[in-house]
C-alpha cells in the first residue's frame, strides 16, 4: 500500500517545515530580529502538538502507511504530543542561555531536527526508519552537547557522547542486520511473525541482545550508563535538561515497540534480562547519586535511576495484565515536568549565584521562598512522595509490576530505591531550608519562570487529579494489550 493518507503525517510535515523555516529565517533575518526564532519555534511546536492531538481517536486501531513502514496509533500520537511538549519547554529553558552566548539560529533548528527524529521514532515501524531517525536524534544531540565550543567540558561531553553513541549505533545496527537476515524483512510485524513461526534460534536471541545493548546505551541503562554523568555535566544546562528527557523517552518508545512487535516469541527471555538490568540500573543510579556535589551530575545519576523505574514498566508491558505501558507513558509525562522544573530552578540559581554545585541552593528558602518551595515539591515528586505526579507515576509502575504476577519483586526493588533516593533529594531540601542564608534571586528570565510554573502546576495537578491523563495513557497502551 503506497502513501494513502498524508493527513496522518501532518505533525511530521509541520515539524519539518518548521525546522526548515527556522533554519532559513536564521540566514536572512537581521541579527537583531532573530529573537523571533524561539517564539516561532514555540508556536510551531504548539501547532505540531495540536495537529498530533487532533489525530487522537480512542476507537482507532493502528493505521499502517508508507508501505507499512510507518504506523499511526494512539501510542505514537501520545508520544508525538509529548515530544512537542518537550520541545516547547526546552525552547523556553534555552532562551536565556542563548541570550548569554549570543543567539544563533542553528541551535533552534538543530533542536527541531532532534524533535523531528524523535517524532518519527514514535511511529517508525521499520528497521531502516528506526535506524535513520535514531541517527538523526543522536547526531544532533552530540552537537548540542558540545554547543559551547570554547568550553573544554562541553567539548569533552560531546566527544564522549559521540564515542559511546557511535559504538551503540554500531552494535544496534549489527543486531538489526542479523534480524533482517533471520526474518528477510525490515518490517517489525513481519519480523515478529517470522521469528514466532520458527523456533527461537540462538541467533534471534543474539540479535535481541545486540539491539537491547544499543538501546540501553541511548536510555542510559546500566551497565551502559558510564557516559551519562560526564555528558550531562559538560553539556549546557538546557541541553542537559533536554537529553535527560527527550532522547531517553524516544529510546523507550523504540524499546517498547521493538520488544512487543518483534520479540513476542522471546518474551520470557527479554523480560528476565530487562528485569535484571532494571534492578541494576536503579541501584547504580541511586547509590552513585548520593556522593554527588554537582547538581547536574546528581540529576544525571537520578535520571539513570528513573530509567530504571521506567524499565519496570517495560517488563510489565510484556505481561497480560497490560498495566505496564500506560504506567510508562504516565511516568514519562510526570518525569518531564518534575525534571525540567528542577533544571529550570538550577538555571535560575546558577544565574544568580554562579555555581552549579548543590551548595548554590543553600539558604534559598530565606532569599526566595517561592523558588525553594517549588524545588521542594519537585524533589518530593522525584522521590515519589504524595501529593505529586512522581508519586502517582511510581504507584502505577509498581502496581503494574505487582499486577504482572511474576515480576512483583521489581516493585519491592523500586520501593527500596525510592527510599535511597530520599536521602540525596532531601539533602538538597535540607540545604535550602537550613543552610547558610544567601541573597535572593535577582534575575528571573520569563522563559524560565514559565517552565517553573508549568512544572509546578503540572506536578501537583498530576498528583491530585491523575485520572484524565491516565485514561489517555491507557487508550494509548491499548494496542499492545492482550498480546
Amino acid at each position, binding site marked *: 500500500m*503506497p502513501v494513502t493518507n498524508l493527513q496522518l503525517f501532518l505533525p511530521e510535515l509541520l515539524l519539518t517545515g518548521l525546522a*526548515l523555516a527556522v*533554519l*532559513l529565517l536564521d*540566514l536572512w533575518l537581521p541579527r537583531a530580529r532573530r529573537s523571533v526564532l524561539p517564539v516561532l519555534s514555540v508556536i510551531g511546536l504548539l501547532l505540531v502538538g495540536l495537529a498530533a492531538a487532533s489525530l487522537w481517536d480512542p476507537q482507532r486501531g493502528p493505521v499502517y502507511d508508507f508501505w507499512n513502514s510507518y504506523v499511526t496509533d494512539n501510542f505514537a500520537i501520545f508520544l508525538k504530543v509529548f515530544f512537542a511538549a518537550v520541545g516547547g519547554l526546552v525552547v523556553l529553558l534555552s532562551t536565556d542561555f542563548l541570550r548569554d552566548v549570543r543567539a544563533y539560529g542553528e541551535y533552534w533548528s538543530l533542536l527541531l531536527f532532534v524533535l523531528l527524529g524523535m517524532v518519527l521514532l514514535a511511529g517508525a515501524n521499520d528497521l531502516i526508519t528506526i535506524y535513520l531517525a535514531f541517527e538523526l536524534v543522536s547526531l544532533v544531540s552530540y552537537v548540542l552537547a558540545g554547543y559551547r565550543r570554547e568550553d573544554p567540558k562541553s567539548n569533552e561531553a560531546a566527544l564522549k557522547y559521540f564515542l559511546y553513541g557511535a559504538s551503540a549505533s554500531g552494535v544496534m545496527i549489527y543486531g538489526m542486520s542479523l534480524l533482517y537476515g533471520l526474518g528477510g524483512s525490515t518490517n517489525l510485524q513481519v519480523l515478529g511473525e517470522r521469528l514466532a513461526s520458527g523456533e527461537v534460534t540462538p541467533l534471534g536471541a543474539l540479535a535481541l541482545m545486540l539491539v537491547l545493548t544499543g538501546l540501553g546505551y541511548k536510555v542510559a541503562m546500566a551497565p551502559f550508563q558510564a557516559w551519562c554523568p560526564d555528558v550531562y555535566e559538560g553539556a549546557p544546562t538546557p541541553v542537559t535538561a533536554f537529553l535527560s528527557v527527550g532522547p531517553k523517552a524516544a529510546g523507550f518508545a523504540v524499546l517498547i515497540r521493538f520488544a512487543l512487535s518483534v520479540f513476542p516469541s522471546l518474551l520470557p527471555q527479554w523480560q528476565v534480562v530487562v528485569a535484571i538490568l532494571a534492578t541494576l540500573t536503579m541501584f547504580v543510579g541511586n547509590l552513585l547519586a548520593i556522593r554527588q556535589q554537582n547538581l547536574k551530575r546528581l540529576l544525571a545519576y537520578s535520571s539513570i535511576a528513573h530509567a530504571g523505574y521506567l524499565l519496570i514498566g517495560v517488563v510489565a508491558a510484556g505481561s497480560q495484565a497490560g498495566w505496564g505501558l500506560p504506567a510508562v507513558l504516565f511516568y514519562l509525562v510526570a518525569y518531564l515536568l518534575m525534571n525540567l522544573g528542577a533544571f529550570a530552578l538550577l538555571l535560575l540559581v546558577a544565574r544568580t549565584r554562579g555555581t552549579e554545585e548543590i551548595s548554590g541552593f543553600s539558604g534559598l528558602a530565606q532569599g526566595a521562598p517561592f523558588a525553594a518551595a517549588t524545588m521542594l515539591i519537585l524533589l518530593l515528586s522525584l522521590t515519589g512522595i504524595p501529593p505529586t505526579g512522581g508519586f502517582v507515576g511510581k504507584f502505577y509502575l509498581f502496581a503494574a509490576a505487582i499486577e504482572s504476577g511474576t515480576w512483583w519483586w521489581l516493585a519491592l526493588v523500586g520501593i527500596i530505591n525510592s527510599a535511597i533516593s530520599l536521602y540525596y533529594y532531601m539533602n538538597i531540601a535540607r540545604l535550602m531550608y537550613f543552610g547558610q542564608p544567601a541573597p535572593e534571586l535577582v534575575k528571573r528570565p520569563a522563559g524560565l519562570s514559565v517552565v517553573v510554573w508549568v512544572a509546578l502546576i503540572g506536578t501537583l495537578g498530576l498528583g491530585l487529579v491523575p485520572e484524565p491523563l491516565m485514561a489517555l495513557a491507557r487508550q494509548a497502551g491499548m494496542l499492545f494489550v492482550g498480546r
Partner: protein
Amino acid sequence: MALEYGPVAVLLTFGVALGVAAMVTAWLLRPSDPYAAKQAVYECGMEPIGPAWSQFYARYYLIALVFVVFDVEAIFLFPWAAVFKQLSAATAMGAVPLVEVAVFIVILLIGLAYAWRKGDLEWTR
C-alpha cells in the same frame, strides 16, 4: 552473474598486468645508480622542505562535507532515474516519484544555501 562482468575482469587484469609489466621491464633494463638527490621526494622540481604533515584549514573540511552531501544525492538520483518510468506507470499519479525526489533535493539544496549564506563557499574572507 560473473559472466556479465567478464569484460570488467578482463580490463582489470590487463590494467594491472600492464602496470606490473612496465615496472618489471624497467627494473630489469635500467642501470642502478642511486644517489641522494635522486632518492629525494620529487616535488615538481622544488626542494622538499619540512615534514609532509601540514595543517589544513577547517574550510577545506566544510567544502568536502558539502561535496559528500551532493555525492550522496547523486547516488540516490541514479537508481531513481533508472526506475522513473516504471514508478510513474505503477503509481496512479505519475507525479508521485517526481515529488518524492523533489522534496529530497530541495532539503539538500537548503543545506547548500546554508553553507553558501554562512560564507563556507567563499575562498577568502
